[in-house]
C-alpha cells in the first residue's frame, strides 16, 4: 500500500498575514504588493510542508477569505451577506446569483498564477488548486435567476467549474482539490446530492489526466456513499472526515464500492489538541485492512478554526507519526 501525507485547503492566517490583509483593505498597499508579500508567506509555509514530507499541498490560501471567496471575482456572482459556514463560528459571503453564471478571468486568477510561478518548476506537481464544489456552491448561493436547484447546479458545474479548471490547467496546475462539504450535509436533499455526485463524475471525466481530491467534511453518513460513489473515478480520490461519527463506516462502504484510493481526514481542524500517534498509525492499518492501495492522510477540513501555531503542530505530528512507518 502506498501511503502519503497531504495538506488541504486553507492554513490559518498569522499576525503578519492578517496585517497584510488590513493594509490592503485600508489601501495602504496596492494589490500587487499585497500579492507579492502574501506569496512570500505562502512559499514559506509550503517550504515547511515540503520538508515535513507532505507530497501534495495547496498554497494555504492565505490570500483568500474562504473557499467561496474567489468565486465572486471569477463568476460574476456578487458577494452577498455573511452566512455561517456549517456549524462553526466562521462566516463566508454568499454568492448572489442574479444572472447567468459564467466563468470570467477575474483577479483571483492572479493569486493562483503568481503562486504557481513562484514555485520551482520541478516541484509544481506537488501543488493543488483548491476550488469549491458544485453542491456547496448551490448550498451557499442566494439564487434568484435559475428556476431550480438542478439548473443552478448544472450552471455552477458546467458554466463555471469546468472552464475554471481548464484555465487553471492551462496555467500549469495538474492537481485539484474540490471542497464539497455540502454533498454530505444533512441540509441538502438526497436528489441534489445524487445529481451533484453525477456531475462531479462528469467533471472528473473531462480532465482524465488530472488528479482530483474530493474533500468532504463535518458530516458523513452511509446514505452519502451512494452519491459519492458516482464521483469515484480513475483520477479522483475521496476525502472523508474521520471526526464525524460515521466517518469510518463511510470509508468502509466506499472500499466496497471499488474505491481503491482514499484521503483520510485525520487531523481535526476544529481542535487544537494534536492527535495521538498511535491513533494515526492505527488508522493507516485500518485503511490497509480495508484493501486500499493508496492512502493519503491529511487535515479533515480547512484549518482556519485553530490558531496557526496549533495547526502547524498537528501537521508536524502527522508527519512524525506516520512517515516513519512508511514501507
Amino acid at each position: 500500500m502506498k501511503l502519503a501525507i497531504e495538506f488541504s485547503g486553507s492554513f490559518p492566517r498569522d499576525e503578519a498575514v492578517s496585517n497584510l490583509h488590513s493594509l490592503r483593505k485600508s489601501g495602504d498597499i496596492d494589490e500587487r504588493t499585497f500579492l507579492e508579500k502574501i506569496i512570500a508567506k505562502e512559499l514559506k509555509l509550503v517550504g515547511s510542508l515540503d520538508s515535513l514530507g507532505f507530497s501534495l499541498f495547496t498554497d494555504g490560501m492565505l490570500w483568500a477569505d474562504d473557499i467561496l471567496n474567489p468565486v465572486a471575482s471569477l463568476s460574476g456572482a456578487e458577494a452577498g451577506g455573511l452566512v455561517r459556514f456549517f456549524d462553526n463560528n466562521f462566516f463566508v459571503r454568499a454568492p448572489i446569483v442574479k444572472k447567468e453564471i459564467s466563468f470570467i478571468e477575474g483577479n483571483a486568477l492572479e493569486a493562483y498564477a503568481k503562486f504557481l510561478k513562484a514555485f520551482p518548476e520541478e516541484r509544481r506537481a506537488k501543488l493543488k488548486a483548491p476550488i469549491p464544489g458544485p453542491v456547496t456552491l448551490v448550498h451557499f448561493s442566494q439564487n434568484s435567476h435559475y428556476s431550480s436547484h438542478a439548473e443552478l447546479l448544472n450552471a455552477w458545474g458546467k458554466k463555471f467549474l469546468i472552464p475554471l479548471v481548464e484555465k487553471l490547467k492551462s496555467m500549469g496546475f495538474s492537481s485539484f482539490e474540490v471542497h464539497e462539504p455540502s454533498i454530505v450535509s444533512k441540509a441538502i436533499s438526497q436528489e441534489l446530492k445524487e445529481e451533484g455526485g453525477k456531475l462531479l463524475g462528469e467533471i472528473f471525466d473531462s480532465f482524465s489526466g488530472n488528479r482530483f481530491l474530493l474533500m468532504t467534511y463535518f458530516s458523513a453518513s452511509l446514505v452519502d456513499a451512494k452519491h459519492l460513489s458516482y464521483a469515484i473515478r480513475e483520477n479522483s480520490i475521496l476525502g472523508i472526515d474521520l471526526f464525524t461519527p460515521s466517518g469510518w463506516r463511510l470509508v468502509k462502504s466506499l472500499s466496497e464500492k471499488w474505491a481503491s484510493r482514499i484521503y483520510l481526514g485525520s487531523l481535526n481542524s476544529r481542535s487544537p489538541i494534536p492527535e495521538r500517534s498511535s491513533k494515526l498509525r492505527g488508522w493507516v492499518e485500518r485503511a490497509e485492512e480495508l484493501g486500499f492501495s493508496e492512502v493519503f492522510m491529511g487535515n479533515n477540513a480547512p484549518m482556519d478554526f485553530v490558531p496557526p501555531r496549533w495547526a502547524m503542530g498537528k501537521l508536524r505530528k502527522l508527519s512524525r507519526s506516520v512517515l516513519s512507518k512508511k514501507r
Partner: protein
Amino acid sequence: MKEIELPILPISVIGSYPKPKWLREAIRARAEGKIDEAHMEEAYNDAVSSVVREQELLGVDIPSDGEMRREEMVEYFAERIEGFKFFGKVRVWGNNYFRKPGIVGPLKWRGPMTVEEFKFLRSVSTSPAVKVPITGPYTIADWSYIIYYKSKEEATFEIAKIINRELKALEEAGANFVQVDEPALTTHPEEMEWAVEAINEAVRGLNIKVGLHVCYSDYRILKPYYDKLKVSQFALEFANRGFSDLEVIRGLNVELGFGVVDVHNRFVESPEAVEAAILKVLNYVKPECLYINPDCGLKLLPRKIAREKLRSIKIGTERVRKKLNEKGIIKTYLKSEVNCS
C-alpha cells in the same frame, strides 16, 4: 420587581456600541504598558458616560454601557471564569478574529464579572431602566474548545451554573433587565433540547426581566422552543433578512425585541423604512409586547453611522407611537413576567 413605566414601543439596544477612537488608543497603550490600570479605568468610565449619554440623547429608552470594557463577547467571560485558557486568535470572517478559549480545567466562578459594569452604568444613566447583556452558556461552550469535560453538554451546564450566579449577583446589585446573548443557539439543531435547558438553568430563580438575543440564525429551529425558554423577551434580528420571515414569530407568547436596522451594513435605513417595518410587525405582535432595537450589537459600525441608525430608529418609532397614542396606547411597563398570547 418594581414597576417601571416606559413609553409604548420602548427603544433599546442589543448591547455593544462603537468604541470611541481614543478609547481604542488607550486600550492599545495599556497593552503596551504605556498607561496604568487607574488611567485605563478612568478611560473606560469616561467612554461609558459618553456612549450612554449619546444613546439617551438619540432616544434610546433602555441604554446599555455599550460593552466598552469588553473586547469580545466570549473572550470577556472566558478571561474571568476559572478553567479557561486562550489558544490564540481564530478568524470569524474576512479579517476579523476572536481569541479562542478552551476549557482545560474544572470551571469555577471567581466572583462577579459584570456587577461593577452595571453599577457604573446605573450611576451615569438617567433612564429608569438599563440593560446588561451577558453571553449565554451555550455560546460560550460552542465557541470554546472543550478539552477538560467529556462533552459540550457537560461544559454548557457547568457554565450555566456560573452564569446563574452572575445573574443573581446582578439582581442583588439592583439590575432590572438582563439579556442572555446566544448567537450560537441554533447552529446544531440536534443540541437544541439540552441547550434550551441550560439557558433555563442559567436564568433560574431570577425575579428581574430576562431577555434572550439570538441572531443570524435559523429562527425556524428556535420556534418550537418559544414557550420552553423561561425568558420574557426574544430580541431577534430582522432587518438583515429584509423583514421577510415575520411569520416565524407567530406563536411567540412573550415580548419581541424587534431588530429594525442592519448592523453589518453601513447604509443608513430611513425613518420611513423603520416605521414601515414596525407597522408590518404589528400585524403579528401587540404593541404592548413590542420593543424596538437594532438587529445586533452596533460595535462594528463607524460611530457616526451607529448614531444615524439610532436616529432613524427614534424618528421611525415616534411616528408609530403617534398613531398608537391616538388610539390611547401610550405606555407600557418593564415586566419580568409577560403574557403576550
